[in-house]
């Protein structure tokens, strides 16, 4: 517990440092980032998409308990929901520093434009966060009731059995409401990108299904990672079945993701039209190392999740989850360069067939000897951007840490008690 206190203070300091960096950006303007007019979304939006993805784990795990009768996952459901809620909060927190005028964010409520996929996304992510929170509350209700917590007021005056029954019934409902929401947030987040007819890299019907597969794979990996950390090595054998199931789910969805990704590559390569090939070439040629990371890391994680030697080992699962999350982060970053650096207004070169010439875009900042008009912007996040990104990162970890620490039934002693109770009373469903 002492260690966890130091950890919380550490995370708090990082959140603070990120907020200070954001304050600096607010004061100076977004010129302190390395984004410019031709490359107008960078690491902030990539990280946002990453967070939305890892938020998937929660309701997928807890809904599977009921929808797919996977009772063995139940002991991890609470942790899963906490990670989901935390990631949704992280996604929301990440969008704010990307706004040039965060002080006017209330305009989203006053003047929403319901044709904008961004507005749809805000609605479904808020909905998802609420569903996760309510589902978590329903889940911990019997424990709160037993502790005579004031938070259990809606079931005041009932017996313990009645409360357990209510919790079980409502959990079922939450599972059925939650799963479509979980699917929706990835679909709609992908629509933000895939609706854009000017961006060939995103403008494909495969993007939403791919977002879902990446989300299931990475969200599940996050649940494995947090569960292993919270429950520790001692109880590994006790939950080995649950871990194995999650590892198989994640591994399978990495395969689905590769299938979708290479489907897209295949069509671009086969037809070979310049405006289809260019984004692919940018990923392979100009971002070779990141592209290797987005392929090799998830591939390694997939093998580890499916291989009996590693999926039955604490260390193996731990490493695989971390590797996958790193690979998915690289994958999310690569949403941007191939999209922005293949400039939509590209025209044929007179007298030369098959070649495209990109109409240069003004960067928006006069900074000699840098060119003002560019047709390629070598985007690398600035120090300020990295610092600001640390704020939602640390926030997610902080919410998870506080959640598993203060909510009953996450740490081992409490889990054992609730498990025993589960054996006696609720195993019947």
């Amino acid at each position: 517990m002492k260690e966890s206190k130091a950890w919380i203070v550490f995370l708090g300091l990082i959140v603070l440092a990120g907020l200070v960096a954001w304050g600096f950006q607010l004061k100076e303007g977004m010129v302190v980032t390395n984004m410019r007019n031709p490359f107008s979304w960078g690491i902030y939006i990539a990280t946002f998409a990453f967070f939305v993805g890892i938020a998937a784990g929660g309701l997928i795990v807890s809904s599977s308990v009921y929808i797919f009768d996977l009772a063995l996952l139940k002991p991890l459901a609470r942790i899963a929901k906490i990670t989901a809620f935390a990631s949704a909060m992280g996604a929301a927190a990440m969008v704010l520093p990307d706004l040039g005028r965060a002080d006017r964010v209330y305009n989203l409520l006053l003047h929403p434009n319901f044709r904008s996929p961004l507005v749809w996304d805000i609605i479904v992510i808020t909905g998802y966060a609420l569903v996760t929170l309510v589902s978590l509350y329903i889940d911990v209700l019997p424990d709160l009731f037993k502790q005579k917590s004031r938070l259990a007021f809606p079931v005041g005056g009932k017996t313990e059995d009645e409360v357990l029954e209510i919790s079980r019934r409502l959990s079922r409902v939450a599972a059925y409401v939650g799963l479509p929401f979980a699917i929706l947030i990835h679909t709609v987040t992908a629509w933000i990108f895939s609706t854009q007819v000017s961006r060939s890299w995103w403008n494909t019907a495969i993007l939403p299904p791919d977002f879902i597969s990446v989300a299931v794979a990475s969200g599940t990996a996050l649940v494995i990672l947090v569960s292993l950390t919270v429950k520790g090595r001692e109880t590994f054998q006790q939950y080995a079945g649950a871990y194995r199931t999650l590892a198989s789910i994640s591994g399978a969805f990495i395969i689905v993701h590769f299938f979708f990704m290479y489907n897209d590559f295949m069509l671009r390569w086969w037809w070979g039209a310049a405006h289809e090939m260019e984004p692919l070439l940018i990923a392979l040629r100009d971002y070779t190392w990141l592209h290797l990371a987005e392929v090799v890391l998830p591939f390694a994680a997939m093998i580890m999740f499916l291989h009996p030697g590693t999926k039955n080992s604490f260390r193996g699962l731990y490493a695989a989850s971390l590797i996958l999350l790193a690979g998915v982060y690289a994958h999310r970053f690569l949403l941007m360069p191939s999209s922005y650096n293949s400039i939509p207004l590209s025209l044929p070169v007179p007298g030369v067939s098959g070649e495209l010439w990109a109409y240069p875009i003004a960067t928006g900042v006069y900074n000699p000897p840098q060119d003002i008009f560019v047709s390629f912007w070598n985007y690398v996040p600035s120090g300020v951007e990295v610092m600001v990104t640390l704020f939602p990162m640390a926030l997610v970890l902080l919410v998870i840490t506080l959640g598993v620490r203060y909510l009953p039934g996450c740490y081992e002693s409490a889990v054992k008690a609730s498990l025993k109770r589960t054996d006696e009373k609720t195993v019947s469903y």
Partner: protein
Amino acid sequence: MKYGMVIDLEKCLGCRTCAVACKAHNGQPPGVWWNRVFTPGSKFHQTGVGEYGRMGMYFLPVCCQMCSNAPCVKVCPVGATYYDENGVVLIDYERCIGCRYCMTACPYGVRQFNWQDGKKATEKAHYAHGYSYGWPHKYRDKQGRLVYMPSRPKGVVEKCTFCAQYVNRGEAPACVRSCPANARYFGDLDDPQSEVSRLLTQRGEFRLLEDLGTQPKVYYLPARRSGGERIERI
């Protein structure tokens, strides 16, 4: 009324006067350009492209294409980008939250973000002491929305307004008036008798990236020098 523009590429001599007049009249901060002119296919402006003996060049001015199916208007989460009563796409500087989704959506690269405070950016550029440029007053459209101000706030997106402050007084946009070759025409596309409407029936006009379905209200008349090639996606 539906305002539109016709640019005759046969007449355009690539002098970039329109870009400079536009910048000066609309007080664009350093690094911000609502109007650009380049030589398609060439690394350097005013330099021919092609094989020896078959060289050629033409100049292509690009400002906001004032799409009738504008992706920027569709994606703006707060309705800060909108069509006014004449079909002109405008940005409300007081409404914009600076999310830059419109910049991602726009295929023409005309949208410009204020990465820093306009005044500060101008100071950093070290112009001659006391030099300032741009229409000196704020301009609000008929609905009272702020679509032009001489000193830009940081964090909002801006772009060509078809010179809302002048067109409202019956004058043509600065780029049209300043063009030494009279290559630009401005007027009402709904009126079949207007100069722009009449030009559109004559020389096989085209629009940029027509296959995207954005339906721009800026039309181009092809340059014969480039062999009359159409500027579209391959």
